[in-house]
């Protein structure tokens, strides 16, 4: 009984404890603060690749790809393509979108504007 080794904390023990605590705090922080950080954003995808993320602050942007230019206006929580020089004009006709999951597609320019909400979607795909 008396021969059991003494458990005297060393500075290495303290270091390990600190590392574990720091990691726990970092991971916890990421978990707790993530929802607050992710307000709805507009994802601009060009040629199938995410090119930019826009906030819902009033502003205007021009994007050119595949020989066509779309003019994007963000106003009062919504986003629209005002005008574009593409032949189909589907992007302009879509009008303004404002809800998560909605998107505007310009097929000729291969540009997609999608509103991403704070919460991840609870489905794998959309049919229709």
């Amino acid at each position, binding site marked *: 009984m008396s021969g059991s080794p003494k458990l005297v904390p060393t500075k*290495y*023990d303290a270091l*390990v*404890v600190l*590392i*574990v605590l720091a*990691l*726990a705090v970092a*991971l916890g922080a*990421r*978990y707790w603060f993530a929802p607050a950080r992710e307000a709805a954003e507009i994802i601009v*995808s060009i040629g*199938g*690749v995410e090119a930019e993320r826009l906030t819902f602050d009033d502003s205007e942007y021009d994007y050119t790809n595949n020989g066509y230019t779309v003019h994007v206006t963000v106003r009062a929580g919504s986003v629209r393509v005002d005008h574009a020089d593409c*032949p*189909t004009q589907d992007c302009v006709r879509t009008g303004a*979108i404002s*809800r998560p*999951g*909605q998107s505007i*597609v310009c*097929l000729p320019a*291969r540009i*997609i504007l999608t509103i991403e909400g704070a919460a991840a*979607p*609870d*489905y*794998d*795909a*959309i*049919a*229709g």
Partner: protein
Amino acid sequence: MKKYIFALFLIACLALAGCGRQPDGTPHRRTVFAMDTVMNLTVYGGNGEAALSAAEQELYRLDAHLARGTAGSVVYALNHDGTVIDREAAALLRASGSVAQASDGAFDPTVAELLDLWGFGSGAGEHRVPLPEEIAAALAHVGEKYVHIDGEQVILDLPAQVDLGGVAKGWAGERMFACMKENGITGAALDLGGDVALWGGKLDGPWRVAIKDPADESAYLGVLEAEGDRFIMTSGVYERYFEENGVRYHHILDPKTGYPADSDLLSATVICKDGIWADALATACCVLGADGALELWKTAATEWVPFDAILVTDDGRVLYTCDGFTAQAEGYTYERVA
């Protein structure tokens, strides 16, 4: 020493817990522009990037091979020469013919000329209401009976014109499955532009597919929980249409009248293990209307290819034939059909 190992183990546990990884690992995703639409492919497990690259190339190949307006495509050749030898075209037209028979002509692959008349063809044609005599003239060449298939050879009685747009996405889905299989993919949700092909499974439960509300494109009717190896194909009058003198003309043409289908359905979603059938049946159901679609649902189960359907009527009813569908939208009455 042991306590340091234990501490490292603790760190590893925390790190892993914090990652929130899905059991299948991180999915690989790709956006592909093909068949006049945007496709979003998501794959789990296996050789993700290789599967996506194979899938993308296959979609481009199919696009070039099956597009009616593309000189050099097999459909272009068939419509001009009246005959081709092509295994893929023969298989697609054979299946199209079967759906035409099963649906009593509500689906027909020879509506190409009609589509062009209305401006719903592959090119960026002008939308207009054709003259009755133009429609009558085009209708004379519409009919599955004008297509003859012998092995890999297809013979078309010109001037009948074929369009494979009604089955192309369904077949593309089937071809995607081959790409998934070859690359060891364990699960994939393949959105082919509103038409969904589900390959394999997920470890955390069934696939969940949101079904669009035909009256509000940003809302969902509900969510369908589905197994893998299924195709979920939708046809809807809201997808493409134009207005002339205050009348709305949609793109789902009735091969019997030559006019947009005068049906009580706004949209039809078909769930089926066969991609080509799923694609063509969705169109057929829209043309047939609710009663006809449900009749087809019954006969197909025993005589053709079994399928399930979610039908939305113009008086606010959602009729569905399968379990696993959870209603979400308000303003509809939901009826489970047995």
